[in-house]
């Protein structure tokens, strides 16, 4: 039977990778994801995990090592944070386009300047359009489960795509939570050994990635697009099976909380969803019909589900944990895709961008309450006064909404 | 859409990369002088060029605005210019040519000798031969005419001049005087025109 442990998000990712029997691991230190590799190196050193541990000379090398290992038929695992994500950028498209389903754990971190080790989604959100599967976990348990689930989804022969398995730096990666760890036999039953249809193998030689004519470019892009088109089906299947085998109950795409009769919802990804749930509870006590919607995947983006299930709300506040300077609405990244997903509905909710959790700042209950006021008003009037709100900065009388930590 | 007169130039990689480009530029610039709408470009997939690889350079001339500007190839060249005669053996140089096209070739060989290597010669109405190499020597190959570069030394100093000069004999899309006007080696253009042997087929 599953034993329960008290794991940080980092430890959860490491033990998830161990359960997935990763074969090639490559590391480079950067806070806050470093803990994942520290755990794995111990497991390898003690012989608890039979894998090659390659000390990369940078994130660019980490991504390259996992690409090479994955192309040779080994299950490969790496990870990074913040500026490291940016440094690996060149290799993301070759990995996704080459269809090498390796996994890159992300404990996100603000980009410079100046040096800031706090959580912010902007780092990996900037790499969201390369073809990677990508989604944020809310808790160490979900980090553990996603690590295994993402491999299963990415290695599906209809998909064959690499994955960003994301968690909020510090908030999820460093604050331990309960993680029920299943038996290895359960994981083996769920996740078959990695099998690449045409690896780099002298016994059956193939050439990987020769030049193509510009005219063929669209055709090869369509392959990546097609793999993403297959994803919702595959995700549905793989999450369902995971729930059955491990006795969990994950929604495939959209995790909803108190949405049945909600007038407005907070729409956000990652760890701050925890706080959002508590905020919703308090608001409900006050008779405010608030709810929360959390996409489990950012790529593929759950636009179908949003169009299907979020049209009924009067207002949606996308709690942005990333920046999109100069982008539409001048807020974060989520609002672009949420608004776009709702566009074809006859009756559309009012949607506004609500900045929170940038650079690792604490997203307080109070902030959700302030934003709730805005959304409640929008729900009444059917429209928002601003595209984007910066709680505590752009509206007077919000003392305490943002407090300095030290 | 307006009728477009397409010219495809075949040249030898590295050795004639610049000359080939100059041939297309001579044609385009000459037609431009006559107030036509023109276009001249290299085949993108043929570059980076390699020593001896066959290269394609293109020119287009039209009386009206050319609406399809961003394409890779000339699909239907009415005139094909060969900078180095051995290319006709290895490549279907008349690829896409509508019936009644013209072939201009830099060679010291006889027309019959050349036609032996063109199985689809029935597409041709005329063939023009000229020994351009004996009229204008190729200067030392250097990096002056690099991909996308500015032609600082002027265009048409080498064999491209007499070759395009010869082409003037069989088309009115661009005129001798305009080619002379834009070419660096004006004498070469004239000699090419005079020495060109036109054969009707």
């Amino acid at each position, binding site marked *: 039977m599953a034993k329960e442990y008290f794991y940080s998000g980092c430890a959860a990712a490491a033990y998830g990778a161990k359960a997935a029997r990763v074969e090639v691991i490559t590391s480079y230190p950067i806070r806050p994801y470093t803990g994942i590799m520290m755990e794995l190196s111990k497991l390898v050193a003690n012989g608890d995990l039979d894998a090659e541990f390659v000390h990369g000379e940078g994130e660019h090398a980490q991504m390259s090592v996992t690409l090479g290992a994955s192309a*040779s038929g080994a299950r490969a695992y790496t990870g990074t944070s913040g500026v490291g994500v940016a440094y690996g950028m060149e290799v993301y498209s070759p990995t996704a386009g080459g269809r090498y389903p390796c996994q890159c754990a992300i404990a996100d971190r603000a980009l410079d300047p100046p040096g800031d080790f706090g959580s912010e989604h902007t780092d990996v959100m900037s790499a969201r359009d390369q073809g990677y599967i990508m989604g944020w976990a809310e808790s160490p348990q979900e980090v553990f489960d996603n690590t295994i689930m993402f491999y299963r989804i990415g290695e599906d022969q209809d998909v064959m795509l690499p994955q960003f398995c994301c968690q909020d730096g510090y908030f999820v990666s460093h604050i331990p939570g309960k993680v029920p760890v299943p038996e290895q036999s359960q994981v083996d039953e769920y996740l078959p050994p990695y099998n690449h249809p045409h690896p780099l193998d002298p016994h059956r030689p193939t*050439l990987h990635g020769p030049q193509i004519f510009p005219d063929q470019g669209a055709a090869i892009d369509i392959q990546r697009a097609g793999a993403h088109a297959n994803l919702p089906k595959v995700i549905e299947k793989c999450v369902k099976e995971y729930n059955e085998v491990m006795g969990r109950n994950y929604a495939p795409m959209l995790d909803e909380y108190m949405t049945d009769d909600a007038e407005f919802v907070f729409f956000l990804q990652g760890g701050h969803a925890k706080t959002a749930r508590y905020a919703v509870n308090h608001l409900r006590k006050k008779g405010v019909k608030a709810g929360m919607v959390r996409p489990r995947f950012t790529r593929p983006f759950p636009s179908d589900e949003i169009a299907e299930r979020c049209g009924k709300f009067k207002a949606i506040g996308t709690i942005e944990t990333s920046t999109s300077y100069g982008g539409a609405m001048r807020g974060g990244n989520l609002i672009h895709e949420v608004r776009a997903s709702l566009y074809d509905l006859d009756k559309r909710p009012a949607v506004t961008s609500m900045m929170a959790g940038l650079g690792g700042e604490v997203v307080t209950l109070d902030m959700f309450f302030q934003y709730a006021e805005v959304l409640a008003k929008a729900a009444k009037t059917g429209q928002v006064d601003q595209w984007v709100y910066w709680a505590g900065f752009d509206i007077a009388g919000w003392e305490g909404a943002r407090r300095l930590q030290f | 859409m307006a009728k477009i007169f397409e010219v495809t130039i075949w040249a030898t990689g590295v050795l004639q990369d610049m000359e080939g480009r100059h041939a297309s530029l001579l044609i385009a610039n000459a037609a431009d002088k006559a107030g036509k709408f023109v276009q001249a470009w290299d085949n993108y997939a043929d570059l980076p060029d*390699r*020593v001896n690889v066959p290269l394609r350079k293109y020119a287009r001339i039209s009386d009206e605005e050319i609406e399809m500007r961003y394409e890779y190839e000339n699909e239907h060249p009415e005139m094909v210019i060969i900078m180095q005669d051995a290319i006709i053996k290895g490549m279907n140089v008349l690829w896409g040519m509508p019936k009644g096209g013209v072939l201009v070739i830099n060679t010291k060989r006889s027309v019959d000798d050349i036609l032996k290597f063109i199985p689809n010669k029935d597409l041709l109405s005329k063939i023009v031969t000229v020994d351009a190499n004996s009229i204008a020597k190729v200067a030392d190959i250097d990096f002056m005419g690099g991909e996308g570069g500015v032609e600082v030394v002027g265009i048409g100093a080498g064999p491209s001049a007499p070759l395009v000069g010869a082409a003037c004999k069989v088309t009115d899309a661009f005129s001798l005087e305009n080619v002379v006007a834009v070419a660096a080696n004006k004498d070469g253009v004239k000699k090419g025109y005079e020495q060109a042997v036109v054969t009707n087929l």
Partner: protein
Amino acid sequence: MATVKTQNLEMIKSTRNAPKAEMYVPGHRTCAGCGPALAYRLVAKACGPNSIFLGPTGCMYVANTSYLCGPWATPWTHCQITNGGAVASGIEAAYQVLIRKGKWKGELPNIVVFAGDGGAIDIGLQAMSAMMYRGHDALFVEYDNESYANTGIQTSPATPYGANTTFTPPGKAIPEGKVLFPKDAPQLVIGGHPAVHYVATASVAYPVDLMNKVRKALNYQGPTFLHLHCPCPKGWLFDEAKTVEMAKLAIQTGMWVNYEWEKGEYKYQHTPKEYKGVGEYMKHQTRFKHLKPEHISKMQDFINAKLKAPGKPIAVPVAGPRERA
């Protein structure tokens, strides 16, 4: 516990008993008379079928795979010009674990990175150095055609002093074209990588020697480095029939020295009794045509200094900030 090669590829005595099988087969878009292509063919011949080749971006990627095909009878993969060493590390690590787990049966394949000078000692230096440091059992070959040739001949750290490239054109202000002296590639590897026990330079002018150095490198366990002199008719601007002749001239003039560095010991090959002047080499190449006598003698001084102890680092004249091209 690392899987190690048990193979002992035997030395090739003469051209005649070189392996017949071509692993780098006819059918590639490299220049007529391409030095790197010749080197590739010889390296692949020496490696044999149980090999995996990596092609960082460069001529030997682009020209060899234009379009959607390639000339390798073995497995091959493209990698970025930046990461040849890192992708090779991943492949080697994968085979270590796959063999250990019994998922792949057979001798650890020869993993060979075939990188240009840019992919080896310029933008690819970091990944190459890390592969050497970590001790992956792979061979890193730098085919040196002394420029970024695929993009139309731009200067690289291997481009010799005084060469005309499309990024170092000679002009009134900078008459020499390139004013800097090149990096010493083998020294970069020898100098700081304890895991490396074998580094050698070879030239396409001496194919048997080249093939044997490849095999010697492959017989060594752990990382090894080969620096191959590969004349480039397009980039150096000489008649493509003279590719091998240029390589020979380079050795006769001291512009290139064939040597092996084996566990700290230097051994030299093909040293001429008397060196010709560098002018003898440079006069055949249009890339040096613009040079004045004083430039040639500057090059001669540099070569003379190098030849005092080939393969060892020497001080080079440092260019002023304004002229650094």
